[in-house]
């Protein structure tokens, strides 16, 4: 460790008279060095910081330094006999909020059915739709209660085909909850698809009363001056317009280590490459190329330096000449050569 420090802090002559004297030139030099250091290291630091930011943060073009995530709240919209209801559900886990973005193997890690059972009423309905359970539960109900099989095809049927089928009679045989499930599945008015969206939780003074209130907004990075927000306490009330500079975002520090872990397992988002095998390839190429280079070049160097033979100068010039011809220039020819030798 001390050897490293000696290397790093080494100077050419050491201080004069045991005392460091700095001239104007020295100060300019240090200024230049610090400037160069920043110019070289800031981009590298930026890429390092970006590497632990979540996709969400990168997509939002958020230029904050640290990997942060906003505290989130789920905003549900439920359509039912009581009309359209809008409400917030706090403290939902990330996987529920991001459910629609998850891939099927990620979805398999969670238990949506078990999760929805903790809720009731409209919260249950919106989560059931959001987590994609309506279709499977309807199919289960149809088979459990021996309901007619045409129900699964009903929504895609033509009007003429529907005529002979008695949907009303089927509805009669079900209880209220089962009716609701079937109506949501079939999309019969007033039931429409329920939606849950992830919103950013902010606190801001109420534009009318001035009392600090919690709001849900869709994005805090938009370039508009006013943000449309709904109060968490009165979600079905009017949408209020909040001035952007009055809001406080509750952000939490949250590095996305998945950016490192996922590529190792070959699961890089949108890219079908296994990072581990890429590394293996690179290491293989490096090691083999180095070994071959060392072997054949030391052989050539030995021949050129230890022997005296006819054509020595010519060989030396040939080897020097290869330095002159850059690989990019012989691109077409190299391709042909590799093709002809059967390597490609």
């Amino acid at each position: 460790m001390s050897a490293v420090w000696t290397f790093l802090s080494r100077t050419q002559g050491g201080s004069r008279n045991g005392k460091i004297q700095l001239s104007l030139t020295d100060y300019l030099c240090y200024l230049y060095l610090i400037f160069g250091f920043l110019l070289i290291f800031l981009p590298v630091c930026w890429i390092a910081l970006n590497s632990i930011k979540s996709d969400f943060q990168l997509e939002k073009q958020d230029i904050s330094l640290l990997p942060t995530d906003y505290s989130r709240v789920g905003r549900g919209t439920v359509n039912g006999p009581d009309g359209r209801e809008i409400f917030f559900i706090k403290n939902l886990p990330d996987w529920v909020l991001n459910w629609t973005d998850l891939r099927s193997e990620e979805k398999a890690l969670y238990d949506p059915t078990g999760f929805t059972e903790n809720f009731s009423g409209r919260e249950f309905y919106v989560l059931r739709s959001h987590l994609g359970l309506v279709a499977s539960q309807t199919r289960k109900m149809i088979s459990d209660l021996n309901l007619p099989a045409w129900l699964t095809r009903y929504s895609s049927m033509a009007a003429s085909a529907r005529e002979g089928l008695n949907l009303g009679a089927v509805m009669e045989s079900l209880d209220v909850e089962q009716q609701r499930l079937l109506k949501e599945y079939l999309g019969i008015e007033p039931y429409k698809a329920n939606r849950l969206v992830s919103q950013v939780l902010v606190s801001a003074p109420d534009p009318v009363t001035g009392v600090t209130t919690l709001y849900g907004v869709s994005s805090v990075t938009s370039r508009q001056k006013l943000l449309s927000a709904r109060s968490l306490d009165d979600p079905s009330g009017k949408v209020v317009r909040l001035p952007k500079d009055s809001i406080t975002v509750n952000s939490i520090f949250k590095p996305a280590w998945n950016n490192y872990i996922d590529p190792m397992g070959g699961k890089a988002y949108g890219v079908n490459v296994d990072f581990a095998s890429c590394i293996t390839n690179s290491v293989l190429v490096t090691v083999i190329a180095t070994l071959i280079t060392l072997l054949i070049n030391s052989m050539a160097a030995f021949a050129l330096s230890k022997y005296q033979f006819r054509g020595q100068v010519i060989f030396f010039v040939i080897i020097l000449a290869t330095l002159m011809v850059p690989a990019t220039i012989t691109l077409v020819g190299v391709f042909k050569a590799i093709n002809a030798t059967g390597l490609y």
Partner: protein
Amino acid sequence: MLEPILNAFSNTSWTMSALGWPLEVLQKFRGSTGLPYLFLLPNMLIFGIFTFAPMFINMGFSVTDGRSINFEQRTYSGSDNFQRLLSKTQIDTGGANQENEKFLSAVKHTVVFVIFQVPIMVLVALVTALVLNRDIVGRGFWRSIFFYPVMLSPVVVGFLWTLILKRQGVLSLTLIEWGVIDDPIQWLTDPRWTMFWSVFVYTWAHLGFYMLILLAGLQAIPKDLYEAASMDGTSDWRVLRKITLPLLMPTLLVVMVLALIKAFQAFEELYAMQVSWISLVAYIFEASGLRGQPTTYGLGVAATASLLVALVLVCLSLLQIVLSSRQNRL
């Protein structure tokens, strides 16, 4: 019981002679005249196949037409490819022909790039080397910092700067925040900025290499000259002009020519950043059609262009060899 065998294996001279005995036998019977050729053979084979043969193959491609890389399926066309290179349309890509005067524009842009990049690179490398050669605290640290970008792969450099210079990148967003600009600028493709950032990033990435050569040149200047100068009370500026620069001149010339050769072949970083102009090597790469759609004249045109570029580079390299041999004599 095993020990003597193990000892025999760990004995270096034993293993060496095990590897060397065929050669010794050969030398005993045939004399040492053939051996150097044997040692040079693998080197020559690899250089022959992957450097010299491609050059001649390139010549073959430049005088033939055709889509295939097999010479049987290509027809002799003489100097057609050369004329095509200088004419308006080189590769007919159909209706919206994007390839008009592409070679001439590549030449023009590359020359502009070289004219700006080489002096800036040499100047910045010289200043950095002079600063790093001084009596500063943490010299090893500063030297490794300035050398660091050289170790990064060109693709990484391209990606790193794209992240900063893209439309919604950190530079545009920060400048908007500070109120310097109103709308985000696409630094890498905006015609007013693309050359500036190409030169900047290229200098950023390759500075350390030239700095290192200049630093070695500076250290080779005898210390007693400086001692004599300081005894005479010479000012720093005069020392720089009368001692450092004249004695550094041969190294500086070599660095200039090396930077020229390198800038002339600028490709990887610029290609990774997708700047809006194409360099000569990028032209060769794109025209060849080895990546993407092969075109009728693409291979021939690319081969002709690479021969022309190779000619310029060989001249520059000869200049470099002459200069460096002069430097060695000094």
